[in-house]
């Protein structure tokens, strides 16, 4: 967590000062003393939680804030203070173990954070001190230092730009890692400081740090010898933010204003809130049940104890008189301590070690994701990345997938596909980059059935070459002659296909320029005044760039005004069809509209190109207006907009372009698999509806038969007032159609493939969504929302287009908090997806082209979308099954561990005598039964990986937390009760005659406990063995090893008189037990009897899974069976299920009834 360090040298009263004064070039400032010296933090970034010194206390404090740990601590303290049946070691040791393991894990993670911090903090920077360049570590930068930053370096702190190597006193930066905008932004130097950075004497007054990235207010007082102080105002255009990267500028100097944790980046870093998985919630619910069980057990025992003691002679038989202390104690106090003692005695029912095993399972298990070679992408040269191991099992529970479009479903790799000039189609014969990375310049490769007039064609291509803000990377050697131009997209290694050093705010522009190149017109470069292109005749044309009418999302177009060599003034405009068509002469529109619409349908991003000749007087007028608007102080934006709109009229449409954003590799297959697995895929994109829709079709999210429901501005029509009514109308209509007309059984997750039900798809856009979500607060708002949600949930796919990043998060939150709180997963690659990645239960980052922001904020990062399939269907499924089984098994094994001890209280006068020896009590969870379940939870593959991949529908088997619902929990609990009863009363019956040795000698209570314990250890271990479907050598090793270890330990523990033990309770108990044939037979009988129902169940359940589980995996000889059998449970297995449950129930009955009678008589007696 990025913690705002309050210790950061801000005293109380200085905090209130709302501006700070900084002496630029600190060292050389002679007037520094004239100002009260303010203290600022150093430039250290601290994301780590602990230091060596505070690690222990702080970590302990945080660990004991967890309810489970605190509970164990209390139990431990009770054991230490009160006279309890078991020694404090029995709960102290496991607790110590848990705390230590967790501390080591957290310490390791913090060490990694320290390392990452150090990497940033120790990064070498150059600082000017006394006019000399001094190398420093980044963390040593102080406020007021003048820092030198070279091209492609990130700024080490927030700087006010003083000097740039560019002639025009500007520099370019990208802020991709801050806000995800990968375009180049221009920042300006403070006027008058340019010449003399070394001898600069200046004071900067600016506001105290605040997180808004786009706000900065300050003043700079520049002193020069013999001149009066010049004051310059500072704005956000002068401020370079930490985390941004310098581009296209050789070097800059800037003065540090905010450092370390006070930089805007650090202030903006939202701490990732801890995500808790649904399994963890289940654990907590079960924990409460067991806690109630524990308390009620202790309560029952305490009550019965005092009831029993009221009987004549039982309170204090002569053979066991009370001590003086016991007599003196107050009755109620005694009851209370008895209650506590029972709590302590039974506290093992809440498994301490479960937490550590779960933690270990998650931590170790997540390595399998990192190690998976299928996630390795040769292009990125990386595999998957696991940022948190807490959510592994959540990957198996996903119900809703929210995916970004650009960069996630598509490659964000724009390709010029075709253009249409004057109604004639020009299709690229080949993709320009597929051969050898070369852009051909020796002639256009086009199939032109009918050609437009040549001059129109050239005009169009010139327009493409001129109407943009693309820049050619300057540092390139002059090899444009060869046509080799290197692409540079935001610091990412370009794919070998497009090595072109064009820099642009949008990849579309690059694609267009490159597209023009294939047709013979190459953009060579520009400076602030002119643009150069090489035409088909290999002649360089120079255009004077007069004005750039910048792109903005409202106008949705941009224009340039250039003057050709012949002195002609031309305006070129390109933009979305909807914004161009009304502004051109009508006659051309129709011919081109056909193409544009067809292209949009195909999933291409389309733009229209138009031009206009400006006469001299026209231009003079426009020029004057533009200048005036630019210089105006008030409402500059509005005025500019008005002029733009006025200029961009009466244009002549020349043509349109189509750019393809190719689908990611196997995107459709992945989406189909995910839908087959019962997940609903929602596409949330900022892109426009037509494009997004076609992408959805391409990804097969919408199928041909899918009926599309639209909730868009278009569907709602114009007019502010009517919109809401119309919206409600539409909602009601769709709701009726989708929800009511479809039988409920066929909707939702359980819709089988065979069902002929109509598929629905929904399209919503941002404007409608905000109308929906922000509708009038009086009741109707939530009504809208409910209707909308119901419609959404009944649709197979939902497309939300024109979404702002925050709206994406809003949608995720809406679904997340809807009824049944489904598990959501967000997948995205850009900074605009961060909000939804953080919002969803599981956030997946694609290691795409738009920076690492998404990856860093994600829980898991994968190189490509296609990896999502294996991540969810295989890893998620397996992790879920593993951990669910782990949790259930843990509760089960502790229930049947402690139940005999509870029952024993009825036969030992409620005196809290433990049934088992302290060593067994302690070791049971730590040594004897912990390893097999850990191995199971790491290696189990109840269904093989290949089968899981091939049959997406298997994912539905574990959907909705299937293995951790109350049903299975009840089953496991009953199993635990059954086993516990069987163990205790079985041995009880055997002990009706304690002379179990042929020598006539009798066994005592410790032998009784040891027999029960032996049965217990063997039964729970073999039970796990029965559940294990995938026996690697590790499973064999730990399962048989655990049993062997138990036997060896028992021999050892009972074979030696331990000097530190006061009572050698177990001395030779185990060995003596083994010398009794009856004990052997009893152990064998009870193990077999308790496992019989399970064997039966496994055997009878088999036919159902047969098709998918056993036959298919890796056996080339077997025919894969028909997948639909997976869903249609054959009638046979219905019967089997019935029979098996009946048998199981009857088993339970038998085992209950037989000892219960004994139990009753015993209690009565």
């Amino acid at each position, binding site marked *: 967590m990025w913690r705002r360090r309050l210790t950061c040298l801000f005293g109380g009263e200085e905090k209130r000062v709302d501006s700070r004064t900084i002496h630029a070039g600190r060292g050389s400032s002679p007037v520094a003393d004239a100002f009260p010296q303010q203290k600022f933090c150093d430039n250290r970034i601290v994301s780590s939680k602990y230091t060596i010194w505070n690690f222990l206390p702080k970590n302990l404090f945080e660990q004991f804030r967890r309810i489970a740990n605190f509970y164990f601590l209390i139990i431990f303290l009770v054991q230490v203070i009160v006279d309890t049946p078991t020694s404090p070691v029995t709960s102290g040791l496991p607790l110590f173990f848990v705390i230590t393991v967790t501390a080591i894990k957290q310490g390791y993670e913090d060490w990694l954070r320290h390392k990452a911090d150090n990497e940033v903090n120790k990064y070498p920077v150059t600082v000017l001190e006394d006019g000399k360049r001094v190398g420093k570590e980044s963390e040593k930068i102080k406020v007021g230092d003048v820092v030198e930053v070279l091209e*492609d370096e*990130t700024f080490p702190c927030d700087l006010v730009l003083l000097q740039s190597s560019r002639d025009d006193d500007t520099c370019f930066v990208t802020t991709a890692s801050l806000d995800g905008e990968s375009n180049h932004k221009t920042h300006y130097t403070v006027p008058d400081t340019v010449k003399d950075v070394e001898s600069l004497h200046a004071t900067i007054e600016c506001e105290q740090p605040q997180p808004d990235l786009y706000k900065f207010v300050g003043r700079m007082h520049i002193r020069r010898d013999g001149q009066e102080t010049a004051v310059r105002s500072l704005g956000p255009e002068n401020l370079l933010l930490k985390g941004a990267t310098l581009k296209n500028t050789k070097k800059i100097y800037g003065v540090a204003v905010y450092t370390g944790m006070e930089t805007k980046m650090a202030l903006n870093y939202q701490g990732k809130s801890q995500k808790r998985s649904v399994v963890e919630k289940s654990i907590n619910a079960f924990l409460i049940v067991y806690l109630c069980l524990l308390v009620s057990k202790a309560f029952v025992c305490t009550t019965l104890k005092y009831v029993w003691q009221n009987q*004549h*002679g*039982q309170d204090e038989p*002569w*053979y*066991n008189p*009370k*001590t*003086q202390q016991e007599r003196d104690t107050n009755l109620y106090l005694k009851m209370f301590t008895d209650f506590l003692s029972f709590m302590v005695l039974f506290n093992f029912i809440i498994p301490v070690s479960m937490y550590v095993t779960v933690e270990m399972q998650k931590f170790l298990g997540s390595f399998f994701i990192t190690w*998976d*070679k299928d996630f390795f992408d040769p292009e*990125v*040269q*990386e*595999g998957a990345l696991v940022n948190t191991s807490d959510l592994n099992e959540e990957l198996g529970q996903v119900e809703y997938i929210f995916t970004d479009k650009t960069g996630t479903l598509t490659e964000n790799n724009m390709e010029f596909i075709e253009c249409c000039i004057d109604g004639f189609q020009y299709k690229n014969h080949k993709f320009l980059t597929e051969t050898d990375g070369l852009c051909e310049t020796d002639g256009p490769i086009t199939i032109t059935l009918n050609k437009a007039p040549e001059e129109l064609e050239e005009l169009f291509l010139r327009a493409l070459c001129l109407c943009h803000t693309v820049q050619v*990377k300057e540092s390139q050697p002059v090899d444009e002659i060869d046509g*080799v131009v*290197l692409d*540079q997209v935001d*610091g990412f290694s*370009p794919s070998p296909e497009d*090595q072109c050093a064009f820099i642009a705010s949008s990849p579309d522009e690059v694609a267009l320029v490159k597209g023009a190149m294939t047709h013979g017109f190459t953009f060579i470069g520009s400076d602030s005044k002119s643009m150069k292109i090489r035409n088909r005749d290999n002649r360089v044309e120079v255009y004077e760039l007069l004005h750039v009418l910048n792109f903005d999302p409202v106008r949705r177009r941009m224009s340039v005004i250039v003057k050709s060599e012949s002195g002609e003034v031309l305006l070129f405009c390109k933009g979305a069809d909807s914004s161009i068509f009304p502004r051109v002469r009508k006659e051309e529109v129709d011919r081109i509209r056909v193409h544009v619409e067809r292209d949009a349908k195909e999933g291409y991003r389309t733009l229209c190109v138009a031009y206009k000749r400006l006469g001299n007087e026209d231009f003079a007028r426009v020029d004057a207006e533009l200048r005036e608007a630019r210089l105006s102080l008030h409402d500059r934006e509005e005025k500019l907009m008005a002029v733009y709109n006025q200029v961009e009229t009466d244009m002549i449409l020349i043509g349109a372009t189509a750019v393809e954003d190719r689908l990611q590799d196997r995107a459709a297959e992945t989406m189909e698999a995910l839908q087959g697995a019962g997940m609903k895929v929602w596409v949330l994109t900022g892109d426009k509806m037509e494009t997004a829709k076609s992408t959805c079709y391409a990804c097969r999210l919408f199928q041909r038969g899918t009926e599309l429901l639209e909730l868009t501005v278009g569907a709602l029509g114009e007019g502010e007032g009517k919109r809401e009514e119309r919206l409600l109308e539409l909602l009601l209509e769709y709701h009726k159609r989708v929800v009511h007309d479809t039988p409920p059984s066929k909707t939702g997750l359980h819709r089988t493939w065979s069902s002929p039900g109509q598929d629905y798809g929904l399209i919503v856009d941002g404007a409608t969504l905000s109308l929906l979500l922000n509708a009038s607060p009086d009741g109707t708002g939530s009504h809208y929302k409910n209707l909308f949600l119901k419609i959404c949930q009944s649709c197979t796919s939902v497309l939300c287009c024109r979404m702002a990043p925050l709206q994406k998060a809003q949608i995720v939150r809406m679904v997340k908090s809807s009824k049944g709180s489904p598990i959501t997963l967000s997948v995205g690659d850009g900074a605009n997806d961060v909000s939804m990645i953080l919002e969803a239960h599981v956030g997946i980052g694609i290691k795409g082209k738009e920076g690492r922001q998404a990856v860093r904020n994600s829980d898991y990062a994968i190189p490509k979308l296609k990896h999502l399939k294996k991540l969810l269907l295989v890893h998620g499924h397996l992790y879920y099954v593993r951990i669910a089984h782990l949790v259930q098994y843990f509760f089960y094994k502790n229930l049947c561990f402690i139940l005999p001890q509870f029952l024993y209280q009825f*036969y*030992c*006068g409620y*005196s809290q005598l433990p049934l088992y020896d302290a060593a067994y009590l302690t070791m049971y969870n730590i040594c004897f039964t912990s390893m097999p379940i850990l191995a199971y939870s790491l290696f189990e593959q109840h269904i093989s*990986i290949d089968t899981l991949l091939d049959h997406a529908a298997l994912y539905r088997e574990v959907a909705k937390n299937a293995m951790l619902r109350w049903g299975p929990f009840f089953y496991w609990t009953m199993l635990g009760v059954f086993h516990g009863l069987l163990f205790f009363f079985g041995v009880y019956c055997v002990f*009706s*005659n*304690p*002379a*179990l*040795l*042929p*020598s006539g000698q*009798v*066994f*005592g*209570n410790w032998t009784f*406990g040891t027999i029960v314990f032996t049965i217990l250890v063997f039964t729970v271990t073999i039970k796990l063995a029965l559940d294990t479907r*995938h*026996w*690697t*050598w590790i*499973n064999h090793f730990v399962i048989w090893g655990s049993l062997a270890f138990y036997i060896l330990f028992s021999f050892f523990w009972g074979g030696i*008189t331990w000097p530190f033990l*006061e*009572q*050698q309770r177990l*001395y*030779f108990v185990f060995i003596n037990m083994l010398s009794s044939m*009856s004990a052997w*037979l009893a152990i064998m*009988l009870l193990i077999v009897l308790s496992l019989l129902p399970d064997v039966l169940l496994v055997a009878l359940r088999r036919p159902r899974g047969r098709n998918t589980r056993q036959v298919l995996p890796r056996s080339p000889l077997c025919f894969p069976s028909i997948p639909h059998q997976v869903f249609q449970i054959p009638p046979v297995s219905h*019967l*089997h299920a019935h*029979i098996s449950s009946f048998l199981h129930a009857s088993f339970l009955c038998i085992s209950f009834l037989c000892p219960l009678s004994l139990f009753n008589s015993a209690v009565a*007696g």
Partner: protein
Amino acid sequence: HPRDVRTCETNKHRTGSSGEGTTNRPDNTAFDQQRLPAWQPVLSAGIVIPGFLLVGLAFIGIGVALFVTSRSIQVLEVSAPKGFPPLAVPPTRGGPVFLYYGLSNYFQNVRGYGCLAMTTSSGGTCPRCSPSSSCAPYQYDQNTTIAPCGSVANSMFNDTFTLYQLVNATRKTVPLDGKGIAWWTDYNIKFRNPPEVDGSLAAAFNGTVKPVNWPKPVYDLDPTNPANNGFLNQDFLVWMRTAALPDFWKLYRRITEGEYASGLPAGNYTLEIQYNYPVANFAGRKSVIFSNTSWMGGKNQFLGIAYLVTGSLCVVMSAVMLIVYAKFNSPDEDF
């Protein structure tokens, strides 16, 4: 060559590891890829049904053996004995016969009761050392250490039994063997007496007093056999092995000598009981049991019956499963 120029060695410090090249590639080992060779057992009908049958038959076999053995063990129980109860002993097969005393509603397994300070056993040198506080309230008797301390020792069973055979109206004493009634390890290793002082055990216990309820001190428990004194008294050791349940037997004597070694001859016997041990005030009962043993120990019908029931259940299950599979399964079922 310019074509090979890559411009993107930038952001080294931002992307960190991305520049490391192929070292990022995950290892392609079976372990890493979760493709370790694995045995995937299938509990098919072909295994389960014969398995159940086999287990069932085996269990029935064991059950029959246990049942028969258990039936052959003869037990003669005398409840609430007092004075000279006459005993008519039927012909017994197999000896030796063991004499047990039984106590019911007697909670030897109460926490705090079972405690015995083992300072005496581990090393056995220090009977005068301050005994463990768990011995309270029988820790000190007027500030002198009690040896052995604790309630359990204090309440040691002290009825004595003598068995007579009535032969022609004369009483013939049946020799009772008090050796070997405690666990061998208890007698030889776990418990130890303090080293004798001047050849006298009594001197070793100098400075301690006898437990309050005892008529005689620990070093004088068995006047007839000096090796059966101190902590190493067999009756004491038997008593100290606390019973698991409130109704229990404890071995009193073995009948191993002479004509009685192979079982009590049929006839009339009488038992002389010296009644010392009070049980009435806690509603307890005493009994005396004569029993012989077999390989399975004493008589216990439960095990035999349980084995028979479980075995038959298994057989029935396998039959049911057979029917189910034969009736409902497709012909391609492989069993």
